[in-house]
């Protein structure tokens, strides 16, 4: 395992201080959304289980990840997990595609007990679900962690974040190395799972231009080993390093134009590359100016569902994005002045 980059490690640890209280028999959230199953548009059922959470976030954690806010530090008992599952089941009825998230790794046996996972999988299989998406750190992508007795087709999503070790060490604080990622992808594929990679767009400290280059390069690197790539523009989650930097105005969330550019430059890759920006259009998520946020998000959704391309998107703020891109590496951080995306026009005054 690569050595820790001490300054960032301290910074990440300091960010987590808030005590949390959650109802243990309730899942964090559940909803449905449109998704592609093969080439077919289906309605997918999504649920987030409340668990102990990611082991890495307990130890140190990644600079942009605030999912530990939804976890229970002492762990959640088997019984409570089953109660949560009972509340999720009805929303999965009749669905063909399910996404079961935890705020950590579904196939970490210390976080989600194997028995429980096995029962959930066979339950879903019986409900007629064809494919289920789960997420995991690469550490746990080992066939012994997902050899279920009876399960739908498994799709494992791995947070690669970046293929650059510099970005992983100094910006993300994730102990991941490229050869390890390749190894686990191959082994999962050999054991019948499909793979999806998450790639960060604009991790903290990176500027707009370097961020685009890093995301594109990471997508090109990852493409041969996975089946789908999701570009995740970094959004500002509570109690994270990213939030601190954002509050200090040393980093701002990426532009939606940057998402569009990354997708455009990846359109010839042999795998599907798409993006569903979390918190898109808000100050905490990827955004452009006030007048085109909705339009561009709609365009990204259509692109994700294979219903259109992105080339027709246009707005006057795109020229501003060009300017910030050309100077961003001289600013030495990922910031830009407040109000720049809307041209420093004053908001309405009452």
């Amino acid at each position, binding site marked *: 395992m690569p050595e820790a*980059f001490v*300054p*960032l490690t*301290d*910074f990440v640890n300091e960010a987590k201080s808030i005590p949390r209280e959650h109802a243990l028999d309730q899942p964090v959230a559940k909803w449905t959304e449109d998704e592609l199953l093969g080439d077919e548009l289906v309605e997918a059922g999504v649920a987030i289980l409340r668990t102990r959470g990611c082991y890495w976030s307990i130890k140190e954690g990644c600079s942009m990840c605030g999912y530990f806010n939804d976890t229970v530090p002492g762990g959640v008992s088997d019984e409570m997990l089953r109660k949560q599952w009972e509340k999720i089941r009805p929303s999965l009825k009749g669905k063909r595609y399910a996404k079961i998230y935890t705020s950590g790794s579904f196939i970490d046996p210390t976080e989600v007990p194997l028995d429980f996972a096995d029962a959930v999988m066979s339950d879903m299989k019986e409900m007629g679900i064809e494919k289920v998406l789960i997420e995991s750190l690469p550490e746990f992508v080992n066939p012994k962690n997902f050899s279920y007795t009876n399960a739908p087709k498994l799709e494992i999503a791995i947070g690669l974040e970046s293929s*650059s070790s*510099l*970005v992983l*060490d*100094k*910006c993300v*604080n994730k102990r991941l190395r490229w050869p390890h990622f390749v190894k686990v992808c191959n082994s999962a594929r050999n054991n019948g799972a499909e793979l999806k990679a998450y790639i960060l767009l604009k991790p903290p*400290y*990176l500027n707009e231009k*370097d961020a685009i280059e*890093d995301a594109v390069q990471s997508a090109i690197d990852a493409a041969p080993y996975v089946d789908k790539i999701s570009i995740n523009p970094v959004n500002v989650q509570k109690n994270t390093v990213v939030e601190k930097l954002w509050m*200090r*105005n*040393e980093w701002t969330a990426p532009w939606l134009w940057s998402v569009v550019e990354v997708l455009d430059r990846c359109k010839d890759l042999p795998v599907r590359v798409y993006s569903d920006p979390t918190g898109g259009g808000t100050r905490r998520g990827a955004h452009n100016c006030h007048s085109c946020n909705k339009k561009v998000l709609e365009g990204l959704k259509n692109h994700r569902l294979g219903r259109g391309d992105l080339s027709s998107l246009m707005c006057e703020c795109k*020229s*501003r994005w060009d*300017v*910030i891109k050309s*100077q961003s*590496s*001289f*600013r*030495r*951080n990922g*910031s*830009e*002045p407040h109000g*720049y995306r809307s*041209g*420093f026009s004053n908001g309405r005054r009452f």
Partner: protein
Amino acid sequence: MEPVGHEGLGRLLDLGENLRTPHIVFRKEDLTEATDLESGGSIVVGKPFDLPPKPLGLDSEKEPYLHLSENIAVLDNASSLKPQKIVEIASKIRKEAGYARLVYAPAVEPSEMPILAYLGVDIFDDLSVELRSSTGWLLEDGHWVKNQSNDDLTSINGEELKRWLSKIRSSISNGRLREFVERTSLHNPRVSQILHYSTKVLVEKGAKIHTPIRANALSLQNPSVIDFQERLSRFTPPVENMVLLVLPCSARKPYFKSSSHKRFFNAIREVDNYLSLHIVSVTSPLGLVPRELEFCYPAAHYDIAVTGVWSPTEVEMIRRQLSRIEPETHYSQAIVHAGSSSEIMTSLLKERGLDTIDTKAERPSSFEGLEVLQNVARMSLNGTKPVNSKQRAKGEAIGLANFQYSNSDFLTTSEISGRMPYKLRCGDLAAISPVVGGFGLTLNGGKAYASNGGATIKAENFKLVGDLFAVGVKGYEGDWQIGDQVVIEQNSEITAVGIAKMNPEEMVSMKRGIAVEVRHHA
């Protein structure tokens, strides 16, 4: 690299080839992008220099604050760091970067450039201006104005930015940078805040340049004013149990040269034992100025609008100054003859429990006013213990020396002769000098000062003629601020005394420029 001027923590450096700092670099001409994520690229200031790596993964609120390459020190996030943090960093810039590196603050707004230059930043860039230009804003005197026409804003704003920087440079060379900063701080809360928090570091480390202060409400925070006020607590009146005479200030400085103060003096000198009267002038923004300190900067170097109205802040300031002088323990009585300030002074002195007489003269220097003053003075001095001029001169010298030096025994134990204002001297050690603003040390005084732990500069062994240049400095002992008196030692012998023109470490690291303006040679 030659320092040609200082103000606050900022400096005007001559880099040769018509280049002077504070300097502006333009992205398109002067900055080169890095080849990888981490490294910093390069910057052209006359010639190209490498920039330090980008601060990936670092917490900007932790030391070290500056990132260093061989010739450049970068102050990242200067436009977003908290005001207190900026000031804390400013106080550590030289410790981290030394004097030989240029300090560069990327992506700073024009309105914040003067204050950052005042705190020691040498290089700025046009990144913020570029963003404004691209969104249709015109730079005008540090402010942004929305521009509706189709002008080439990039080049217009670039030219304006160059002018803005040359204003900063000429302000430093005229000693008016503080005024410039105060102007930009109006209606700019961030700059005001930085300016407010920087007072302490400017008093402790800032260059003391004797520019006349054109005072206003902001001048109550001027570091030289604060310094003067704080030193007043070291001051004692010449003799105990004198009668305090509070007079108004005058437009002419030093006050004793003004026609009104001459008339006051002529009136009181006819009173028996008039040497028992101690004159203290009341003024804003300094508060109280005893007669002995009228030469000291900035008592003779300011001008303020006279309105006759005292704001609550000014009243509070005078109350604080009175608590530094403690009139109730040093004086037997007070006479207030200060025109429009009389009422306030009388109540403040009574508040401290001193027996106070208000002459109630509306026009203190009029014939009637002077007559009242003479009568009141005669009444108050009736029966007081006589003070002779020798006794009084000694007391005056001690008061002034204590004000100037924290440890002044080396001066005050000598034989004091002459009398205020011009002829007062401490043996052969020091004599009043209006240029120095108080006691100017003679060569012997310098020797006494050095052996008393005073600031000493060790110079190379050569025949010192004229001023001492930085290239001849090899070390130093003690600490000083620019403008303080220092002693030059060559080959273990004191060979000159003069006024410091550079900071301690700066003298050693600079190869060019005047280090000490010499007043007396061996």
